[in-house]
């Protein structure tokens, strides 16, 4: 009995996956951009590409553009405003949605 258990663990790991597994995916609760009441807007002239906003963004919705500045994924950005508060160059402005 015990031998069998060890065998299952070591040689047939796939038999352990009896329960359905979730996989990492975008939008596990939908397009969270619709939650936003305020929209972060990058003022490109001021952005130095320092990546501080990228480091702090809780949603992983800030990306580097080819020119080294940042862009925001509005499909999922929840509009928290963390990026605007941490930017040392005041290069992100929060403007009301809609």
């Amino acid at each position, binding site marked *: 009995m015990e031998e069998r258990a060890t065998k299952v*663990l*070591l040689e047939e*790991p796939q038999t352990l996956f009896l329960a*359905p*597994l*979730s*996989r*990492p*995916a*975008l*939008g*596990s*609760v*939908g*397009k*969270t951009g619709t*939650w936003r009441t305020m929209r972060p807007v990058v003022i490109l002239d001021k952005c130095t590409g*320092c*990546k*501080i906003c*990228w*480091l*702090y963004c*809780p*949603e*992983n*919705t800030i990306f*580097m553009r080819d020119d080294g500045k940042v862009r925001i*994924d509005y*499909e*999922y*950005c*929840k*509009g*928290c*405003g*963390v990026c*605007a*508060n*941490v930017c040392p160059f005041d290069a992100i402005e*929060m403007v009301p949605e809609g």
Partner: protein
Amino acid sequence: MVVNIRKLPDRYYIMPGNAACPGCPETMGLRYIKMALGDNVVLVIPAGCSSVIQGIAPRSGINFPILNIVFAAAASAASGLKAAFEAQGKDVHVVVWAGDGGTGDIGFQALSGAAERDEDIIYICVDNEAYMNTGIQRSSLTPYGAWTTTTWTGKKEHKKNIPYILISHGVKYVATASVGYPTDFIEKLQRAAKIRGFRYIHLLAPCPIGWRFDPGLTAKVAQLAVQTGLFPLYEYINGVFRLSPIAKKYKDPKKRKPVIEYLKLQGRYKHLLNKPDEVKKIEEYIENLWHLIDALEKTFTAEGGKGEAIYRSL
């Protein structure tokens, strides 16, 4: 070892479109784990906001292999997972990611047991100072004076000092960190990763929902906790205690910001802002905390600069 932001991996560690509230400190912290440790990480998560943040099956909003587990079993399940990986010859970081309730109250016996057995795991307490997932009830890590739905005139007891209790277990590594200082947290994770045995990191995670502040201020509140002296940042490695370089200066009370600056940003302290006696109790708590830090510094030193050498070598 200094962390260069530009060299950190830029990948989806938190999947956009997850269920966390705007400005969530837990999703911030989760991103830093993989920035520091890479992909070779398995998370063990007991009940809490991070169970819910994952979203609705079959999708998950957290890009890690995760074992979701009951409160009481997080540290023991992680011990077993590590043993199983070892039996398979796999070198994997098994990381527990548990809330303050899951760490200081409900999961404490398993945590204490795993620490005493010196299990080869990293245990991170993501401390938002209450049971947030079930609607902001007090935990033993809720601080004095804070409003919660079960302490609606303000909590009467002080915060339980879990990192200190873990130092008392004599484990290999204990550190405190704050989501306000991500590079410090990443550095600590990287140092912890180089050590074998039980490692504990206490991560302060200000929650805009439960602490009642503007969600844009998560990082700022997390920084103020350190700058007011309320949350000292330190490391304890193999019996040597050291204040973290960015937080060393707050040892001097004159360099600390007035604690009221921290309290007034948070609705959970609204009722005590014009009660000087109550604010004084929090100031006294800070004083006492630093007496303890002083004692730890004096107790856990290494002769002849060996202490610094230990930190530099990792």
